[in-house]
């Protein structure tokens, strides 16, 4: 009997021992809250945002990502403080991917020096004015805290007076306004902020109410907003990674809007226009492929580009992508390029003129060798589906292909150039200027210059683009550069991911018309 009692106790220990390990952590999490009313914790009991008070106009939305900090300058956290409506940068991007005034009213270049003038009456949520000196300190802090902005430390940034800042660069720097529109360069009151991770003091239309690291976030109206009246009383961002719960939460009326809608959910929303408003515009995220010029001759590359049918691919991906012409949206001035239409007969003619003969198995061959290409891809952003569709389309004209899937493209096929056709997905237009993407793909030594593309005239134009200030001339240069690569069949630009937002009818102003991922609620966001 005694043994049985001991056995029972051991069994109880087995269960209690494991359950018990939670208690202290929960207590600790429960105790964690800041003096600035930012409730911080990670325990299950605190994993959900506080509900809105009765009668308040509070927007409820789902966020696919959640981050551990609200420090605007670190990592990509500024994207989220911008989405939450907490932080603002000196400029902001509009529907046409142009940097327009926000905290600054103007930025003028004179040689290597940019003069930035602040808007009148800009204040932080605590009422303190945004001064030129504070802007300088913010930019310097961003350079220290974020390695992607370390280049700012090469610039001489000075406050001329209370409203004017000069930024002197070692060389002419045409994209300054666009850089100053990136959300990581949002402004914080560095003197008043005591907890950068949980309660930054910023200039946005909302201030943090509760913040759960890597969890839900609640914001409330900034009563001191410098930009005028804020229509909402607050907003709740529920951290929801999965598509199905978002759809169910929308159906049950627990959320009012969200973006990055899946194709399955789109069907449901489109079927009920009386209740849901779906807004879909081509975004900045591009699916493209690199054709290896060191391995594939001109005719084969051209035949591939004439065969890959972007419209059919976009149709198959059911509304999640729009067919791309070039790397940038055709809504932009620098997205005006042309590509030949799909023509599989011409593709076959090209191959035959190049000496390929159709084999008995329906695959072209030359000198006894089958025409087979290696398609390298990674299974994210629908690239796996894309690889299969391209394989199928190529097989239809007699080009065989093998699929090679990699876990990490950057350290494998992008680094080694070991591919015939490499699929990739990245943001092509990060802040309304073409240089970033052109420089990383088409410039000599660029990050994605791994397919052997080399054109002296193109490089000359890229060098001109680096120093050209005039936006219209920049667009012309960009179009010419991209067209050279298209004509050389060095790349294939397949699709631009749509920026798709679903809103319950009556909800508006949730950045649904902006092609960028880093905008969300604003002073104009409203619920009727």
């Amino acid at each position: 009997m005694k043994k049985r009692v001991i056995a029972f106790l051991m069994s109880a220990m087995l269960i209690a021992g494991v359950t018990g390990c939670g208690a202290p952590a929960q207590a600790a999490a429960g105790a964690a809250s800041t003096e600035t009313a930012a409730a911080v914790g990670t325990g299950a009991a605190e994993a959900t945002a506080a509900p809105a008070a009765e009668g308040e106009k509070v927007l409820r939305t789902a966020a696919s990502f959640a981050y551990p900090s609200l420090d605007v300058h670190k990592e990509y956290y500024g994207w989220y403080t911008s989405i939450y409506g907490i932080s603002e940068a000196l400029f902001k991007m509009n529907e046409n991917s142009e940097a327009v005034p926000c905290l600054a009213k103007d930025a003028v270049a004179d040689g290597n020096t940019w003069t930035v003038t602040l808007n009148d009456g800009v204040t932080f949520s605590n009422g303190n004015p945004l001064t030129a000196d504070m802007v300088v300190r913010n930019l310097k802090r961003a350079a220290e805290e974020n390695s992607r902005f370390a280049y700012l430390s090469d610039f001489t940034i000075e406050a001329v007076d209370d409203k004017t800042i000069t930024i002197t660069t070692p060389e002419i720097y045409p994209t300054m306004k666009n850089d100053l529109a990136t959300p990581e360069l949002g402004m914080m009151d560095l003197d008043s902020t005591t907890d950068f991770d949980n309660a930054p003091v910023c200039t946005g239309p909302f201030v943090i109410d509760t913040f759960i690291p890597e969890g839900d976030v609640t914001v409330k109206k900034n009563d001191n907003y410098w930009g005028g009246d804020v229509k909402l009383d607050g907003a709740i961002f529920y951290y929801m990674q999965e598509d199905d719960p978002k759809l169910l939460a929308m159906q049950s009326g627990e959320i009012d809007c969200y973006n990055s809608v899946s194709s399955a959910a789109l069907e449901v929303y489109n079927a009920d226009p009386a209740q849901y408003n779906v807004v879909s515009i081509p975004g900045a995220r591009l699916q493209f492929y690199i054709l290896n010029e060191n391995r594939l001759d001109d005719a084969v590359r051209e035949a591939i580009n004439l065969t890959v049918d972007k419209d059919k691919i976009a149709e198959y991906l059911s509304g999640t992508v729009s067919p791309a012409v070039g790397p940038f949206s055709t809504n932009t001035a620098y997205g005006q390029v042309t590509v030949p239409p799909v023509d599989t007969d011409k593709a076959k003619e090209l191959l035959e003129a190049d000496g390929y003969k159709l084999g008995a198995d329906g695959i072209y061959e030359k000198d006894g060798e089958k025409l087979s290409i290696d398609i390298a891809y990674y299974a994210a952003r629908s690239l796996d589906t894309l690889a299969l569709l391209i394989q199928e389309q190529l097989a239809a004209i007699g080009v065989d292909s093998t699929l090679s899937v990699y876990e990490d493209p950057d350290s494998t096929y992008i680094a080694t150039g070991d591919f015939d056709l490499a699929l990739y997905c990245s943001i092509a237009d990060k802040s309304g200027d073409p240089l970033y993407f052109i420089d990383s793909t088409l410039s000599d030594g660029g990050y994605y210059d791994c397919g052997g593309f080399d054109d002296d005239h193109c490089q000359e134009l890229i060098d001109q683009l680096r120093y050209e200030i005039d936006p219209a001339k920049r667009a012309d240069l960009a179009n010419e550069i991209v067209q050279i690569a298209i004509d050389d069949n060095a790349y294939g630009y397949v699709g631009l991911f749509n920026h798709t937002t679903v809103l319950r009818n009556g909800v508006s102003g949730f950045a649904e018309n902006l092609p960028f991922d880093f905008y969300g609620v604003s002073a104009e966001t409203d619920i009727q």
Partner: protein
Amino acid sequence: MIKKIAGKIIGLIVILLILSFFVFLLLYLAPGDPAEKRLTSQGIVITKEVLQAEQERLGLLKPFFVRYGEWLLGVIRGDFGLSFKDDRPVAAKLAAGLQNTCILAMASLVFSLLISYPLALLSAMRKDRIADHIIKVFSFIGNSLPNFLISVLLMYFFCIKLNLFPVIADGSLKGLFLPMLSLSIPMISRFTRQMRSEMILQLSEDYVTGMRLRGVKERYIAVNIIRNSLGHVITIIGLQIGTLMAGSVVIETIFRWPGIGKLVMDSITSRDYPVIMGFVLVMGTIYVVINRLTDLCYHLLDPRVRT
């Protein structure tokens, strides 16, 4: 006795050392760069100089043995290091995740046992009769359904159709119910089948035949069967706890439950080596300790094992 315990502890340390070394080696050999993952998480391309500076900052350019040695020394000092993803202490991240997973796992385990034990007994006592067939069919279905499907179906019925629970659950007991049920349904099915087999085995034992011949009532026979099948149940629990602790990632993601499974999946995706290594150590320890406790329970419950 002290010698025995010391032996077990040394055994545990050796197992953890071997485990940690091989996991560290696998992570080292696996493709993917945490610095790159961190810098390009939003699809922004970075320059080679920026990448190299970040690799240097995270210590990724050091040789394998130096990195492993530094990590091991840190662990010995009680410092699991900082997450590569966000520079937060690994220990705090693991503690928070583990706490939530423990709550979910144990609630599911207790709930599953409460349901499956009587079902298994009923099924065994009514073998090949209608109740047994119904239970077998349901346990077959429950065992076959994938977790994500069960979760979404439960969410649809309970939250949309019946409107009993919110889709966006809070951290309350009500919020725990659906994830617990999702995790429990396959477990109840598995437990019921396993326990039923054990109980049928017990029913064929001589002591049961003897009791029946003596005219002992069925409920007393059932009590004896429950008692004698306890050892088997403990083994099942021991095996299941490990799976529950590490394997509820789908449920945690769908129901927004901030547990350790989800944390580790995110860490693997972002190549957050310090968190993965911390997880391996913690889970390794839990597995070994639970196995030892299971052995001990089994030893005490079953006299045949002692002899």
